[in-house]
């Protein structure tokens, strides 16, 4: 962490709930960005949100209602999806003491959308400055924050490379743990931690030979699925989730005259989640990722009532299978109950891949 950044840190945290919220702006304001990873307790929000709402969204609300976010100076919700948008509305009414900001993120990345998003980001920076006395978002501060976050992205790229390494590597569990640690850490501290982690990991030379699985998902905040795959003899070679590969995809262009515009461009152009238009592009990216990882199959995991994933899953399955990549669709309730059922399905999937491999 640089001296400037240390000096700026005022011990205040801004929690956020979506990978489309630029941490750089929070950092540049001298605040600490922290991803919201709530305890899984969706049913505790049922009195406030319709039971048919995404279990992650409801867990976020339950967390707010229980006061678990009380340490944060503010929370930021993005217009990620219908559920998240309504979470902001409900939060505003019923969660006291932690103001909720709302960031409107276009669902497409053409130049007009980038320009509009840049305006939104400027507005967001202004709101932070108003809400946190002493917070100032300057171009210089943004530049420094962009460099810090880019360094994290670069280092995580190395972690992901190690994860997919055919002769050495990292387990999916370790990588998820690291991703979650990153979600809760100051990016500068996390960058330092990653450097040590990578140098230790590079000395490992693990045998391989297991079935190689790419897990593509929305929110994966607990290790259940990954542990299950690895305990059953598979190896998770990539975690294409919103705390994983997608979050750390592509750097923000640095040293530009308009860093906010550079942020808007990067966040709309990064590896997309199904909230964005571009199913075809997502499929091509997933196929590329699977090929780079030498994957034998894909597990498409989603939290119950995530419409965005639910709508894309059937087409993803067909297109992946047409490309010779078997795909298993699994839903979870964010609490990861019913693991025995899931075990049967994963076991069968790995078995099927094994048979394909030997046929």
């Amino acid at each position, binding site marked *: 962490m640089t001296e400037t950044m240390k000096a700026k840190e005022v011990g205040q945290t801004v929690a956020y709930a979506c990978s489309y919220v630029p941490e750089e702006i929070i950092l540049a304001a001298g605040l600490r960005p922290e991803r919201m990873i709530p305890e899984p307790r969706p049913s505790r929000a049922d009195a406030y949100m319709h039971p048919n709402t995404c279990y992650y969204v409801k867990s976020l609300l339950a967390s707010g209602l229980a006061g678990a976010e009380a340490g944060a100076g503010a929370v930021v919700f993005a217009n990620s999806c219908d559920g998240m948008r309504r979470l902001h509305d409900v939060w505003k009414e019923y969660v006291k003491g932690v103001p909720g900001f709302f960031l409107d993120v276009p669902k497409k990345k053409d130049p007009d959308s980038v320009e509009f998003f840049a305006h939104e980001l400027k507005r967001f920076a202004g709101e932070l400055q108003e809400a946190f006395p002493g917070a100032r978002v300057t171009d210089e501060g943004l530049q420094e924050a962009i460099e810090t976050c880019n360094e994290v992205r670069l280092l995580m790229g190395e972690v992901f490379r190690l994860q997919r390494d055919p002769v050495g590597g990292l387990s999916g569990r370790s990588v998820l743990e690291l991703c979650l640690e990153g979600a809760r850490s100051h990016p500068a501290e996390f960058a330092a931690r990653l450097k040590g982690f990578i140098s230790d990991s590079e000395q490992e030379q693990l045998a391989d030979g297991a079935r190689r699985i790419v897990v593509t998902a929305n929110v994966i905040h607990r290790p259940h699925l990954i542990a299950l795959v690895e305990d059953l003899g598979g190896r998770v070679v990539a975690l294409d989730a919103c705390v994983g590969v997608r979050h750390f995809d592509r750097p923000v262009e640095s040293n530009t005259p308009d860093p906010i515009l550079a942020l808007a461009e990067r966040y709309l152009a990064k590896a997309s989640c199904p909230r964005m238009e571009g199913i075809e592009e997502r499929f091509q990216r997933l196929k590329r990722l699977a090929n780079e990882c030498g994957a034998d199959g894909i597990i498409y995991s989603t939290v119950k009532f995530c419409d965005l994933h639910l*709508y894309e899953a059937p087409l993803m399955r067909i297109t992946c299978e047409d490309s010779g990549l078997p795909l298993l669709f699994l839903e979870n309730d964010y609490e990861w109950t019913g693991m025995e059922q899931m075990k049967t399905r994963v076991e069968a999937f790995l078995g099927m891949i094994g048979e394909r491999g030997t046929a």
Partner: protein
Amino acid sequence: MYRTMLKTMEEMTASVLDQKESPGAMYINEWAKLFLKAYEPGRKVVYTSVYAFPMELLAAFDVVPFDFEVAGAMMSSTDKGVEMMKTAEDRGYAMDVCSFHRCSLGASFSDCFPVPDLLLTTSYYCDQKAKTNELLSLFHDREAFLLYAPWEITKESVRYVERQLRQISDKLGEITGEPLDENRLREAVRSSNRARKSHLELLEMLKHSPVPWGGGDLIAFSINGLMFNGTEVKEKLNEAYLRRLEKNMERGKARPEKHRLYWFAWFPVYDAGLFDTLREMEVSVPLCETFRVFWDEIDEDRPFEGLALKCLQNPFIGPVQRRMRGLSRIAEEYNLDGAVLFATPACRHANAAHRVLKDTLAEEGLPFLLLDMDISDPRGFSREQMKVRLEAFTEVLDRHV
């Protein structure tokens, strides 16, 4: 394909068309004509979202608008609906996917819907419409355009929407081979403004007690009638309804009403008997949120900006609190006793924050019912359960009064 749809349409409209002079028959007739036009060879068909897309822009081009949700609703009002949903389910679309969309996807896979030349939709109301639009664009291998409608009305958001509408206009020009005729767009806007005036008159009449119209017919017209915005048809329909309502009021032709309800969101398109049950209980629905005039008169000299503003003023865009705007005044003017949110399970944007609606209404002293029922999938529907819920709510209303 055409024959199947014609038969479906015939089944659906037969009873209404018997009442030849009624505005309802006129509306169904116009709607059926437009719907079937989409199947005529050589027509340029544009998929759209009637509830959020400014239809006036389409009215300025020689295109046939087609809303697959509206068409799916029409199918679901016949025996064909479940068959189409099953077709989509067989292809992997889960029961948690909105039944409207399962039906529309199934109908497309079954070659029952016309092939679009362009697919337009808006980011609101829901994620699911945009997603189905993109899936159908891939299925038909035709271009899709998502009109992103931002959360708030600001100078930047109006400009952003305006620019997107101009791009859409160019695309419409490309598919029709005729660039936009600005005069035609201005005329569409003028027509829309005239229809807005008659719409306001209709709203005035709905304040009358007992209400001369309302319930399912009102809600259906409030949504499907948007298909004609910017055309003479919409003006004629509004005028026809005005005349009919005047007559009904003169003749005292209205049903007795003990309670008057405000209606949030949708209604079942299959034969659930929901509004018949309410009528039996002497409960009327004089106003639904989809029939409110939320937009200002559109500036005909700056039509793109005006249409962008109209789009952004839609109460379903932005925070849920916007749906409650003006409700205190409306409750008084329409003499409302309570409100119902028809909650079809997959409609997260409409239902997820129901508690905010409930508590805001409670501050106005209005009871609220969250009525969980599917909009178009009758499997799992129980008339008795629905009746029990409505009876219990009516008891609450009785005690409240």
